[in-house]
């Protein structure tokens, strides 16, 4: 049951949920949660390939680096979100139109 394709399926579901979460959420914190889901999907794939192929320990070390960089990314993005909230009094990302993007 716990084959490589099952792990890849879990990773694919996490990735797609994260992408949809990033695309549809209007809440800035929700967008950050989508980013976390995408990175976790990548982690699942790395660990699965580390177990089921001859990748060995490299996949696990890589997923460790991804976890560390995701934590750093969350810290900076939350600081930006707090700054956004201080300036706009809301966290709705549709209101961030100062740059006329």
């Amino acid at each position, binding site marked *: 049951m716990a*084959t490589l394709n099952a792990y890849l399926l879990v990773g694919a579901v996490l990735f797609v949920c994260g992408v949809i979460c990033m*695309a549809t959420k*209007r809440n800035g914190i929700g967008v950050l*949660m989508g980013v976390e889901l995408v990175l976790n999907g990548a982690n699942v794939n790395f660990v699965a390939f580390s177990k089921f192929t*001859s990748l060995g320990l490299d996949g696990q070390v890589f997923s460790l680096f991804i976890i560390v960089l995701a*934590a750093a990314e969350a810290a900076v993005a939350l600081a930006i979100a707090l700054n956004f909230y201080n300036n706009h*009094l809301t966290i709705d990302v549709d209101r961030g139109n100062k740059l006329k993007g």
Partner: protein
Amino acid sequence: MSALFLFFAIASCLGAVLVVISQSVVRMAFWLVVSLGSVAALFFLADADFVGAAQLLIYVGGTLVLLVFGVMLTASGPYMKIETSPGETAIAGVVGSLFLFMVISSTPSGSAQLTLDEDGHTVVKRTGDWEAIHDAVKPATSTPDDGSFDDKSDGNTLRPIGWALLGLRPDRVDITRETEAGKKKEAADPASGPTAAPGYLLPFEIASVHLLVVLIGAAYLARAKRRSDEAS
């Protein structure tokens, strides 16, 4: 094993779907805890015990607390709801289903076979089925089991990961040296420099400096300021 894997796989996928579906940010954070915790359990089931522990400590223990603090500091009401319109939800469902189908259908399947090219190297013909490739390549490249890490044993990856982060790879001893020695028909010279797979000392240092920069940057960005009066 199989029942546990099925349970945690379904829990992680369901948690991820509910993160997308739920509208309240606090409920989203809760379902994200469920999803990430189940992913950590999947890591444990995949013999990656240190990665699973790091996932629990850093993600579930650190990043989610950070996210909940963000929810608390930015909420304008007790239950902040910024609704997504139903049309957008429907479009997202359709697009997400199509995207998932595309990703799943691109998962390779097939068989691998080994052939020898003119130099005597083994070449994998079909790059389809990863497990077949693993079964075919593993006897050619792996070292004999001397108690170090191999992926058939249970977990116990803490010490090899620590060595790898310090620049040593005892789990990949002398793969290149053995193949070169086999090709040149001479014994490997121990003084010919490092031939084993390199470790991760430089990325480890880069990550530490990166974390320091992020710490300073986040503290600079999130410092207390007077709220601007012209905010709309």
